[in-house]
């Protein structure tokens, strides 16, 4: 009988957990990475800051919901969303076809092109595949930038890093000859002391299939309601000047893009 009772208890627990799925969105958990300045990063005392974080806070305020931030490794961020560890990803995630097969996206909330950075004394002439032949090119894994390098720059020797912090170390010490990432992320890093080693070689022409139409908010496919709420809130902060206020806090140009 003990086994039966245990089974009954298990069923009851499952029912309770399942019942909690009946969703009211008074509280939304936002997943982000926390290693992608200036969009999202952690301060020394563990506070999340950045453009993504401020946009998320503005959206939550607009939707009148309570938001809680959860940080996740970039590699595991989509599985984390699917497993219900958080309800939305606001982490500069580009809206691509590959990802759309797994999750839904809101409209874009910014769009900036990728770029390549090299050491200041680099002899690399340009950003074409022929120019980059045989050089060690670093990128963060599971990103549109690493996919771009794999597809469009096959002659380069691609090295994948878990976060941008590691490729920054390796280009500074000369293990790799170039890195590819978002132009804003690279510029922000080059402006710091750590980025003194390097310069922007040039921006790349984004490929619509690989790079997508900009960064959006990823939502589980079954949560259409939350997606609509986010889209409305996004339109609202774009209209009422809140977006511009956040934009100007971080950038001297418009990141929303055309």
């Amino acid at each position, binding site marked *: 009988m003990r086994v*039966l009772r245990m089974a009954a208890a298990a069923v009851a627990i499952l029912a309770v957990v399942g019942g909690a799925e009946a969703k009211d969105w008074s509280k939304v958990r936002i997943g982000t990475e926390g290693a992608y300045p200036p969009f999202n990063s952690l301060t020394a005392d563990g506070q999340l800051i950045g453009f993504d974080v401020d946009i998320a806070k503005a959206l939550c305020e607009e939707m009148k919901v309570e938001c809680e931030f959860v940080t996740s490794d970039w590699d595991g961020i989509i599985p984390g969303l699917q497993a219900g560890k958080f309800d939305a990803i606001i982490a500069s995630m580009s809206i691509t076809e590959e990802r759309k097969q797994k999750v839904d996206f809101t409209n874009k909330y910014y769009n900036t092109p990728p770029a390549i950075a090299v050491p200041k004394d680099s002899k690399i002439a340009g950003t074409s595949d022929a120019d980059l032949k045989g050089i060690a090119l670093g990128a963060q894994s599971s990103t549109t930038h690493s996919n771009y390098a794999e597809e469009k720059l096959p002659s380069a020797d691609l090295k994948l890093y878990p976060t941008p912090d590691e490729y920054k170390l390796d280009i500074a010490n*000369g293990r790799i000859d170039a890195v590819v990432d978002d132009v804003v992320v690279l510029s922000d890093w080059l402006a710091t002391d750590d980025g003194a080693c390097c310069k922007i070689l040039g921006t790349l022409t984004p490929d619509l299939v690989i790079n997508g139409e900009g960064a959006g908010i990823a939502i589980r496919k079954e949560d259409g309601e939350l997606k609509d709420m986010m889209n409305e809130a996004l339109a609202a902060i774009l209209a009422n000047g809140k977006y511009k206020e956040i934009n100007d806090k971080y950038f001297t140009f418009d990141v929303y893009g055309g």
Partner: protein
Amino acid sequence: MIAPNPRTGLKPPPLAKRPWTATKITGHVLMAFWAISGVYLLTYLLGNLEKPILELALPFLSGEWEVYASDRIATHKFDSFLGRYGDKYISGFLVTLKIVGLSLLFGAALSIPIAAARSSKWKILSRPAYAYVYFFRGTPLLAQTFLIYYGFGSFRPELQSIGLWWFFRDAFYCIIFAFSLNTSAYQAEILRGAVQNISRGQWEGAQALGLSKPVTFFKIILPQALMVALRPYGNEIILMIKGSAIAAIITIYDLMGETRRAYSRTYDFQAYIWAAVIYLMIVETLRRVWDRIEARLTRHLIR
């Protein structure tokens, strides 16, 4: 009806009653659940192999079977996971073998002087050897790898001036270096333990027969020590194989690196299942080889 034994005429005792208790029913239900899950998983994974199997079978088929198979190959969209990433897995597997093989080899070579120093009666030798083993067994392999890869990376000018930068620049050399140091500490302890396990009487007996120390060591002590050391060595190799997955995070495309890359493009969990299957196959092969070696080494003990 159970027939009586023809020789004695006695009937066997009646079978014990095995009623369908709640526990038994639950057990069967749970077992059925796992069996169904297992079958589902297998068919899901083997779906990847349909095309290669059909292509292999095609020359041996005739009549409507041939039509069916060639139709299916021609019309069905075989965009299977293995079809796209199978080659990557094989190259990753080879890189993993290379990393583990080289590290174990260098580690074994290093472990001999370390073990000798560790069991030396001179403290000037045994203390540093002890510290070395203490450090490498007491800290995570991941931390050691990062220390070597990123730590040495920040001393580029110094390393360049002594002409060692080419070595530490390459992630592959770094990982071999880190893994060799790590495994040499473990192997030194295995070796030392096994040699010290042989009783002093063996040394004394050999001395009484007038054998020199090297001859005693290689012909009498070492063969016996290897019997003791064999299983721990096998464990260490298995730990190394699994530990080698760390190489993936310092940009090496080993089995785990390729797995992560495939997963990041597909978000398909079978990426990790295939990796687990390949790691299991390596370990299982090693286990079988080890059984053979043990049977060979202990053949004089079998009665």
